[in-house]
């Protein structure tokens, strides 16, 4: 510790104004402040400051993501081995818990590493170029991006989407705190529209699904998308519907546990709920957004229940089941709550969250070619958030003006 401090002290002059490497000062600074909370003292205003800073806040979000991360790793292995078993190649009993986990671990770690290395390189390049500090925002974005990807996404595609997200999603607006769209969702949207074949269909969600002739590795939403204009008496349809009943592959309990195919981090409701609990307890995540988005989604699903025709299972699916599949909850807990791109006023957050929930379910049900509505719904509401805030603030201004008139 002392040694590290001394080394840093020794090399610091090279990076300061007169030093040979002064252009790289932001990089040095990021490294130093990563290791040590600096010895800065308050220079104006309050003489004491709370212990929390942006690094700490970001670390809390990463800790909240760990249950999803670990479960996602396990599920990646489990789904792959399940597929082998269904193809008759192996029996699922041949694998124990750690086999599933480490299989997923080795498949998923490259995604995490690529995301961080590429993303942070871009961040550092911008910081050095524009002579500002390296911001912590990417610590969370870098973890969120791989968690929203299918496991087999090619690494170069991931790298490209990361670059797009950091440059177009964030840095062109001025960096962390200035962006309009959620950078992690920007990455996902980029890859979704640029390379749709790698982001949809029934062959991408389980490792090597396109090579092994096992059961369909379709997500629950993909499956539902094929059940919107059906003949309820058709036999294949009945077998598909049965997958959503209590002993089917996409049953409520399976969706809740998360042992279904999907993006790495999104499947387990339990893991997401642990993350949500951490965010809410520490005060890092917004309860207003989470609660109102949940209620919004639930209300929309209920409305669909009421008007659903017999031929549309997507609309008549139980509302709770509806929210437990796909990335609704993951988006609700980790994406919609991003404080920079969400609404910023307390009232605005409730409106924003509610509309996120309504639109997520609306888009996924009404556009079967496009089952993952959450991503688009949140991105759309990101754009709308400043407008919501504008009207909330405007109401406060009007109230003040009214008081003035009453007094006169």
């Amino acid at each position, binding site marked *: *510790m002392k040694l*590290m*401090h001394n080394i840093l002290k020794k090399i610091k002059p090279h990076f300061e104004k007169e030093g040979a490497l002064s252009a790289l000062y932001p990089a040095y600074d990021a490294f130093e*402040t990563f*290791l*040590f*909370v*600096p*010895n*800065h*003292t*308050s*220079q*104006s*205003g*309050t*003489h*004491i*400051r*709370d*212990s*929390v*800073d*942006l*690094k*700490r*806040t970001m*670390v*809390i979000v990463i800790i909240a993501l760990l249950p999803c991360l670990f479960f996602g790793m396990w599920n990646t292995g489990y789904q792959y081995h399940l597929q082998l078993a269904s193809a008759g190649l192996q029996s699922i009993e041949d694998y124990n818990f750690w086999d599933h986990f480490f299989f997923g671990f080795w498949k998923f770690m490259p995604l995490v590493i690529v995301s961080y290395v590429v993303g942070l390189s871009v961040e550092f390049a911008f910081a050095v170029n524009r002579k500002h*500090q390296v*911001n*912590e*925002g990417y610590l969370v974005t870098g973890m969120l991006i791989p968690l929203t990807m299918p496991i087999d996404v090619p690494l170069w595609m991931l790298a490209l989407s990361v670059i797009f997200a950091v440059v177009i999603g964030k840095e062109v607006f*001025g*960096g*962390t*705190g*200035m962006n309009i769209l959620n950078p992690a969702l920007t990455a996902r949207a980029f890859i979704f529209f640029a390379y749709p074949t790698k982001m949809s269909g029934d062959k991408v969600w389980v490792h090597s699904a396109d090579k092994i002739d096992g059961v369909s590795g379709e997500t629950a939403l993909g499956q539902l998308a094929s059940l919107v204009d059906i003949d309820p008496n058709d036999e294949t349809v009945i077998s598909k519907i049965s997958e959503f009943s209590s002993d089917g592959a996409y049953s409520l309990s399976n969706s809740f546990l998360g042992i279904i195919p999907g993006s790495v981090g999104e499947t387990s409701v339990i893991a997401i709920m642990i993350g949500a609990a951490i965010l809410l*307890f*520490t*005060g*890092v995540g*917004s309860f*207003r957004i989470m609660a109102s988005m949940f209620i919004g989604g639930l209300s929309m699903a209920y409305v669909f229940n009421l008007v659903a025709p017999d031929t549309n299972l997507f609309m008549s699916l139980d509302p709770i089941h509806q929210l437990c599949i796909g990335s609704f909850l993951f988006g609700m807990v980790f994406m919609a709550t991003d*404080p*920079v791109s*969400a609404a*910023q*006023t*307390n009232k605005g*957050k409730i409106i924003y969250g509610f509309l996120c929930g309504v639109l997520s379910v609306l888009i996924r049900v009404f556009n079967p070619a496009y089952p993952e509505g959450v991503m688009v719904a949140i991105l759309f509401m990101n754009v709308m958030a400043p407008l919501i805030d504008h009207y909330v*603030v405007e109401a*406060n*201004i009007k*109230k*003040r*003006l009214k*008081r*003035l008139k009453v*007094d006169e």
Partner: protein
Amino acid sequence: MDVKISKGADIKLKGSADRVYANVANSKYYAIKPSDFHLLTPKMVVKVGDYVEAGDILFYDKNLEVIKFTSPVSGSVIDIVRGAKRKILEVVIEAETDIKYKQFEIGDLANLNKQQIIDHMLNAGLWPLIRQRPFATIANPMESPKAIFISGFDSSPLAPDNDFIFHGDDYLFQLGLDLITQICDGTTHLNLDGNSNPAKVFRTAKGVQINHVFGPHPAGNVGVQIHHIDPINKGDVVWYLTPQDILTIAKFFKDGRYDASKIIALTGAKVKKPRYYRVIQGTSIAPIVADNTHEGEKRFITGNVLTGERINADGYLGFYDFQISVITEGNYSEFFGWLLPGFHKYSLSRTFFSWLNSKHEYDLDSNNHGEERAYVVTGQYESYMPIDIFPVQLIKAILIEDIELMENLGIYEVDTEDFALCEYACTSKIPVQSIIRRGLDIIKKECS
């Protein structure tokens, strides 16, 4: 009227003053600091070497010449400290052992009219005690306020306890109130702490409207009280002063001399024996803190840790301060401080494990605990802002210097102290109070 506040926080610090008076010899040096008065341009009357009595004029306000600033003690002016652009920072007086007072002819107290009271206060240098909202500057004696507010208690960390200080001052306090109520045609409000049982001197005050304010800090801030009791609109002016100022005014009118003594609390974790002291306005803190602080690097603050001003160990008490705080200077680096569990790191959030380990009192130092960043976290200021405004939006309006937007968002209702808790809690370490001060200065210049 009862006011209940739910937003805010009491930061419990180590080193609150014991309820005893310490005996310490009076300081030899005193200073009046023009920087204590926002936007004041002083015009000097005395020069170095001049002899003054207590109550003799030192300088006046260049923009409003009737506002005079007088010497709190008798002695000779030994220094006029100037800073950048020859701005006057301190007028230092070396005091005599026996203070000689300038005598003022008051006349019959019962027959004083409004203008006579104001004139006497102006001449004796008492007027600067009265400040105004908006802008938190010295009140303009030519204007007439819609109300006067007196916050009977201070809710900030380690604040002195007025119930203790005012023990036995019933007569003087009421006398002061009777005078003050005459200079304002509107109501005079005396706001008391609803969380405790205030001293009899406050409870039995007459001629004023007594309001009880419940809730955590900043319940004692006069700005918060004004907002909930009689809010300021554009064009309104409210005057405010502290209870001890009322005593100073009463003593002046009773005896016809400027007795600038007041009671302050010496507080903070770095103080060996935190106690109350009877001192004179502008005193050097040297005799008070000498031999009474713990080893190590310290920060001396006149005022409280949230809004006070940093001074040296031989610096001078601020004009509006009733407290000296001494805390640890936190200029240390912390290895992975942002990553470790932090069982001992106090935070209003629960991002550190210190919530497992909640203590009665904390020893917080002046470390920033991080670097300044752009705004990321939202909703944080709102939890500590009991005034119905949008704090972050107001700060952003100030940063872009949009005057109309600042007005619309309620800048007339606030002062820097109302944002102190926001600044304390801020994850992005934004210098909130200095931004608010800048906004107020911009508006004030625009108005004049």
